[in-house]
């Protein structure tokens, strides 16, 4: 049992509310209520943030469902997805230069962050046109440089997320040929906590969940000041931030979040993700098959090896928020 916690976050449209909550004292308010201290640490490098969580530097961390599986869970760190705050509904996309349809991607070099959700999105997109990764070449490109990379003549196809996606789409010869709204609910942005820490300190979960939905209610009202604050922190303006929100399905109400956590699509999605990860060799070197890492869902459902459960999805605290018990 401890009373000081560190949570790392990264600049991304669905996670900016955390910065607002921190800066405006909402986190502190909720932490005080439960008699603990919570520090939100901004880490610019998304992977570094997860890595540091995985090695135990942070108690909780923001990451996508796929990264939660392949980094902490595959690294043997038992983790729990405490809040699923949103899913990408167009926030990730594939852009071709000049060409107009997804099938034209065949034979091209595709610049993207390898082994990330972009890679997953590409794989899902290729399935839809009966192509596979063998039909093209993936070029690992850092997310920070992908916008400028697109301006280079060598680059004809990219897969990326927002805000880079929007910056690239604004170019004249850029055509968005596929985006995550075609696979809704598969790229989920979550708050992940070490399972041990969570079990020992339910207060932490309560405080974080409470703070999160307080900000959600502010955003739901479309509070201009709050949105401007988040926009500026992410390096853009109100209009830019709003357009990013438009392609993000935020669960402003706790009810929605509870529903999503209990949906039967969630295990199906995680199965796909697990298979993709296994095929790309990122489930861990010892993984004999895609079921190697077990996952647990609300209501006791599981996927994969039940003796090796490393990733848990819970609705306990979101439900408390929905019921106003926090």
């Amino acid at each position, binding site marked *: 049992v401890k009373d000081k916690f560190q949570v790392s976050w990264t600049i991304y449209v669905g996670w900016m509310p955390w910065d607002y909550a921190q800066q405006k004292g909402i986190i502190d308010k909720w932490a005080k209520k439960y008699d603990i201290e919570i520090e939100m640490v901004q880490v610019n490098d998304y992977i570094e943030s997860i890595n540091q969580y995985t090695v135990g530097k942070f108690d909780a961390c923001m990451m996508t469902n796929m990264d939660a599986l392949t980094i902490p869970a595959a690294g043997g760190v038992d983790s729990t997805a405490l809040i699923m705050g949103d899913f990408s509904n167009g926030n990730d996309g594939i852009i071709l230069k000049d060409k107009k349809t997804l099938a034209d991607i065949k034979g091209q070099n595709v610049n993207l962050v390898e082994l990330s959700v972009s890679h997953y999105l590409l794989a899902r997109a290729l399935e839809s046109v009966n192509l596979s990764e063998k039909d093209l070449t993936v070029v690992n490109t850092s997310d*920070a440089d992908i916008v400028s990379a697109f301006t280079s003549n060598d680059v004809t196809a990219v897969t990326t997320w927002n805000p880079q996606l929007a910056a690239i789409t604004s170019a004249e010869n850029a055509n968005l040929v596929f985006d995550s709204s075609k696979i809704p609910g598969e790229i989920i942005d979550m708050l992940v906590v070490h399972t041990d820490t969570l079990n020992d300190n339910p207060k932490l979960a309560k405080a974080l969940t409470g703070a999160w939905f307080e900000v959600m209610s502010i955003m739901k009202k479309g509070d201009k000041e709050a949105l401007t604050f988040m926009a500026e922190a992410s*390096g853009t303006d109100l209009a830019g931030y709003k357009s990013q929100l438009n392609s993000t399905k935020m669960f402003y109400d706790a009810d929605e979040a509870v529903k999503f956590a209990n949906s039967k699509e969630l295990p199906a999605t995680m199965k796909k993700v697990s298979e993709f990860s296994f095929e790309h060799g990122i489930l861990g070197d010892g993984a004999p098959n895609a079921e190697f890492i077990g996952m647990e869902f609300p209501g006791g459902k599981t996927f994969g090896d039940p003796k090796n459960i490393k990733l848990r999805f819970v609705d306990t605290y979101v439900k408390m928020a929905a019921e106003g018990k926090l």
Partner: protein
Amino acid sequence: MKRLMNLRPSKGTAIFLGLLPFLLVAIMYLFASDARLAENPNDKLLPALTTFSEAIDRMAFTPSERTGEILFVQDTVSSLKRLGFGVLISAILALLMGIPLGLIPYVRNGLSPFVAAFSMVPPLAVLPILFIVFGMGEIAKVALIVIGVTPLIVRDLQQRVSEIPAEQLIKAQTLGGSTWTIVLRVILPQMLPRLFDAVRLTLGTAWIFLISAEAIAATEGLGYRIFLVRRYMSMDVILPYVAWITFLAFLFDFIIKKFTYKMFPWYTAGKETK
């Protein structure tokens, strides 16, 4: 007709010649920018001068709505603090290691291969370990600079110490110096100006590491800002920041050089001047 190598421009010509390439680059920029903007008025790669002045006004003269601070000032102060601490710690560590490494055979034999090997490790490749050891706060950023820069300075100082003529060291011993007092009165004072030179020459590397560190974990700083707006390709912010960094680097180089000349007149007396 004189040989080309014997022709010397007059003072006025020299100044004009010195400015010429800067002017050419500026003109080239304006043309390229115009051409791109004519094709696509929203092009972000080479913004027009007016776009720059707007961005500069926003960053350097208007307080941020979010924090009420002037971002540009805040970024500069944070970065310079990190750079300053990093370089200071590196310099002190380098003195503490370089002098024994150069002077004392036992230390040299024991540590020299290790320092040489260590200086070849690319720090950017072992970032996760560094962040584990130093945390994600200010210390980590300073530490990255220290780890990147210290081995360079140490090796330079070690080399310089071992170049001190044996005659001087023997003379100092016949004057009654112990190893300690010889370090204090003979070696250290001769190494100080060399240290300043070494710091000056590694400042470029220090900047690279500072920018890298800020791109990974920071909430303000020159490197952070560039990293942040790079995702939107806001060249109207990036280019002035780059110009500012270049200017600062130039300034420090100049100040340290002047300071060294001023503080250690005997040091420059021994150097070739032309």
